[in-house]
């Protein structure tokens, strides 16, 4: 396997793995837990908090699965990059507004990260998504994309 392919595979596992873990830990927990984490950022209107707390974990989970299995990798790594950009914006504005929600709420009750640790993690994942979007111009081996491209 070429280094480019290996890197693409590694990025898929990392980005997909993080999104799946993050989505699953929130989706199996009561939605009220994530709603509380969202409310702590004091950013979203209250009417949007409840539906977002239900829909967002599923979005993470499905997109994470697509990326892990290399399905429309380029498109979904772009979408995931957009999601990490949203997280990062929320975290940075919270730091600037001096709002500390305690735990970021990113991984449900699974892992507790501070707001700054999460900002670094999200920045790294955002860069990884950009790299994967570039690498996935051609199908990456061991992916659904390469299986679909096979004649």
């Amino acid at each position, binding site marked *: 396997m070429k280094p480019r392919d290996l890197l693409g595979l590694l990025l898929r596992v990392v980005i997909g793995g993080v999104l799946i873990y993050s989505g699953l830990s929130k989706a199996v927990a009561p939605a009220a837990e994530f709603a509380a984490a969202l409310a702590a950022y004091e950013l979203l209107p209250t009417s949007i908090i409840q539906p977002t707390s239900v829909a967002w974990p599923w979005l993470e989970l499905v997109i994470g699965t697509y990326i892990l*299995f290399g399905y429309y990798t380029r498109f979904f790594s772009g979408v995931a990059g957009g999601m990490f950009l949203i997280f990062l914006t929320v975290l940075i504005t919270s730091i600037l507004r001096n709002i500390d929600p305690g735990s970021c709420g990113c991984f449900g009750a699974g892992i507790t990260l501070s707001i700054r640790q999460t900002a670094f993690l999200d920045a790294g994942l955002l860069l990884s998504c950009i790299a994967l979007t570039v690498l996935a111009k051609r199908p990456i081996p061991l992916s659904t994309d390469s*299986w679909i491209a096979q004649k």
Partner: protein
Amino acid sequence: MTPGTKKILAGVILTLIPIAGVHLARQTAWGTVANTPKARIKGDLKAPVVMVEYSDFQCPMCARVQPSLQSLLERYQGKVRLIYKYYPLTSIHRNAVSAAVSAECAARQDKFWPYQDRLFQTQTQWASLINATTVYAAIAQEVQLNMDAFSACRMDPSAQQIVMQDAAEAKSRQVTSTPTLFVGEQRLVGGMIEIEGARMVERELRNRS
């Protein structure tokens, strides 16, 4: 198989995998709310709407939501009652158990509510202490507890057992953070109690009418 068919097939399978995963991993059986002594129930005992609060005396958010809970009880007087359940988060709050045991000892003298109010109000004074016994005793005196009975109770393992029973009940109901408030079967966590508490009570009242 054409590429189009492969795309659709892959899309369907890869969408079903996470749905099945969540379905398998999600907790479906819930623990029940055990009977709670009257001393830890506030409001009309026959009120149709029951609010159950799982709370930790050392948790800042638990202290913050107290005025909201009080205002719900006042606004819906005769319609709601509040049950307090101990849920000390022992891994992050070193004095949470000892505070809960002290509150339980106050409950045994029917002074749970004034004692819990003072615990929350003085939280920043005792939360970081290595040993907060003197603060607990000072609050006990302030709310006029029988000090001999209070001291004896704090040494009694049954008080801690009650606290741990409540904590086990919380875990069986998939409560992972505090404060968690159940309004009927509806769950609210943290700051959402302040935001959505009244709406949940209204909904529960509508369901019961």
